[in-house]
């Protein structure tokens, strides 16, 4: 992967901004952490929805799985999990700072790898479905996971799961800073990985699958293998994002926080489409714009925020069908390194 000088400046600028952000806007740490998680979700969704042409509503499964796994490991490493989640329990368990961070680190590892493995297993059986069938099937995955986890007593069932509270270290701001940097780190990791694979043959194969899967197969590409690996990469980062989000929210509910297909599951699709699917920067820009609009509507149109959000979606679909990146590309093709042959363009316009 080669980085041009201009790009290097851009990345360093963004990295500096990312590191400085919690200190520049100390009151917005939680929103910024959530923004990082949203970007991770949108970017990884884009691997399926944008590059591969498989509209997956099932990525929320990995996110929720990561959330439960991370919290369970964090608690279970040091205390009996069943007693922690029991609602009538009288005991109070408190993590020491070392226990908390150790648990979190190990929990995040589990939260990343297990969903990836699950994605591999599920992917093997359902990635043979195409188009709408795949979308509907994955939609069912998230819903089913929510209902099942709502019945498992050891992770709190319908009572929900209170994640370990942040220990008393440093100042009041340290919790916010910890979760921000954690999510920012995962965001950077995701970006590097995704950018890496987008510059290899792997991306071209994904695109080939999107454009014509049968033809890709006919050319000797083992499409199934690539589809599964792609999904596993998404699951890896979705799981990480979920684990962080669980700690950040502090309370896991089966259908409202973890397997939140109705919100997060839809938002990740929306953000990628808003920014422009099938591009590297699209999901990032989409998530940022979406998050800012959502927070804004929430403050200024209280009670009407979903109406405002609905209007935004309609506007996007009508005026930016290709997303913000697609719109920019059409408007300023030369900035995207495309050479426009003026004569040819005119000829085409005249033909119409």
């Amino acid at each position, binding site marked *: 992967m080669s980085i*041009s000088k*201009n*790009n290097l400046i*851009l990345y360093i*600028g*963004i990295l500096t*901004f990312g590191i400085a952000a919690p200190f*520049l*806007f*100390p*009151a*917005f*740490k*939680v*929103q910024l952490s*959530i923004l990082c998680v949203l970007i991770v979700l949108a970017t990884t969704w884009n691997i399926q929805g944008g590059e591969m042409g498989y509209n997956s509503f099932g990525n929320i499964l990995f996110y929720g799985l990561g959330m439960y796994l991370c919290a369970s490991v964090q608690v279970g490493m040091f205390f009996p999990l069943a007693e922690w989640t029991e*609602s*009538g*329990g*009288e*005991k*109070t368990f*408190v993590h020491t700072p070392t226990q908390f961070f150790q648990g979190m680190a190990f929990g995040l590892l589990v939260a990343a790898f297990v969903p990836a493995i699950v994605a591999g297993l599920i992917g093997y059986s359902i990635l043979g479905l195409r188009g709408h069938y795949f979308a509907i099937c994955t939609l069912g995955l998230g819903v089913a996971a929510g*209902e099942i986890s*709502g*019945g498992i007593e050891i992770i709190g*069932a*319908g*009572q*929900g799961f*209170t994640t370990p*509270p*942040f220990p008393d270290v440093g100042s*009041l701001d340290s*919790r*916010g800073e910890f979760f921000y940097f954690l999510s920012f780190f995962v965001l950077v990791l995701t970006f590097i990985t995704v950018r890496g694979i987008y510059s290899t043959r792997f991306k071209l194969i994904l695109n080939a699958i999107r454009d014509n899967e049968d033809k890709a197969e006919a050319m000797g590409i083992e499409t199934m293998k690539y589809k599964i690996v792609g999904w596993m990469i998404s699951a890896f980062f979705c799981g990480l994002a979920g684990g962080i*989000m669980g700690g950040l*929210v*502090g*309370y896991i*509910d089966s*259908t*409202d*926080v973890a397997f*939140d297909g109705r*919100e997060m599951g839809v938002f990740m699709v929306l953000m990628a489409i808003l920014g422009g699917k099938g591009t590297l*920067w699209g999901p990032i*820009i989409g998530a*940022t714009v979406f998050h*800012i609009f959502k927070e804004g509507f*929430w403050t200024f149109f*209280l*009670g009407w925020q*979903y109406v405002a959000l609905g209007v935004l979606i309609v506007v996007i679909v009508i005026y930016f069908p290709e997303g913000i990146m697609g719109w*920019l590309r059409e408007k*300023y093709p*030369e*900035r*995207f*390194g495309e050479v426009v042959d003026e004569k040819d363009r005119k000829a085409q316009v005249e033909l119409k």
Partner: protein
Amino acid sequence: MRLNKIILSFISALAILFSTSVVSLAKVVGDKIVLGAAISLTGKYSSNGVHTQNGYNMAVDRINSMGGVKVGGKTYKFDIIYYDDESNPKRAAQLAERLISQDGVEFMLGPYSSGLTKAIAPVTEKYGVPMVEANGASRSLFTKGYKYLFAVLAPANLYLDVAIDLAVEKNNGKGVSVAMAFEQDAFSQDVRLGVLDAIKRTGSKKVIDDKLPKELNDMAATLVKVKQMKPDVLVVSGHTKGALTAIRQISEMKVDVPMLAMTHCDAAKLSKQHGKNSQYALCASQWHKTLTYKDDFFKDGMTYDADFTKEFGYAPPYQAAESSAALLVFKDAFERANSFDQKKVRDALAATNMQTFYGNIKFAEGGQNVDKPMVLFQVMCDDAGKCENKVVAPTKWASAKLIHPIPSWSKR
């Protein structure tokens, strides 16, 4: 690559937007004490969220118009910043963070429902922000060692165990068979645990133990089982939607059961919406207008009922009453602390021992109100079809006698 410019300018625009939108309202501005609350104005708890908000607003208006809060020889007025938590715990936790770190709120009022309170409590606890909540009854809230959480209501496990006791009493002290159907959420599941305890204690047995989904619109499968098993008691809990669904389908399917015990009947305006179909339903309630508690602001339950009905156009369910009581508790604590120091206010709250129109309030170590028993009322209708909720237990407050067993549908 020119694209960089676009992205860079986008980021700088973002930075400017962020830096200009930091507005910090201090908790006490001029003569105002600003409280923060995340309320479910949309989503599955929206009807109860509105009851909660109405309860808060009613008390704020009343306290402000009757002289406000006197701290350090100065009079302050209450003001509340509301956000909509969309009945979502994730959103609620974010909003608590936002109220505290962005809006500078130093005192909080609770949201609606146990799940959302569970999401907010860790945040208020971290910042040491005292929160008086009126709608989070799950027992697990009070066993986490929270120091800044105070609940004016009795814990959820006490909601319906009285009903089991009543049924056993009517069965000459012998155990009864109980069918249970509970929504999968923190509150209802805790009610279930209370019922399970009562079943064990009285030597009864459970014959059905169903979990219902969160968006509760259909429980026909459970009711079919009830028809077959013929239990002595059917217990249902699932917030407002649960109460409405249960009554609708029980009357449609003509399910005969000697005792039907539920929660949230008054919040669902059952007697109004379903009239005679809701007759004989037994409901757990934190408060009823006929209880004889008194205070200086709302006088008593009957007056509160009349004033609330006049202002909002419907009779106050207990969710509204307990929410109003939360502000009375705050006012009392501020005046006793005579300060806006969060620690002092917290200590004053912990030492609360007062009577309000809603009931006595005294907090245990874990923050739950231990000085206020639950009541059970039964929906009773006259021949003209006008229905009313009448307290039947405990005996001290009873204004009518329990009708038991419920007459079968064929005889109604």
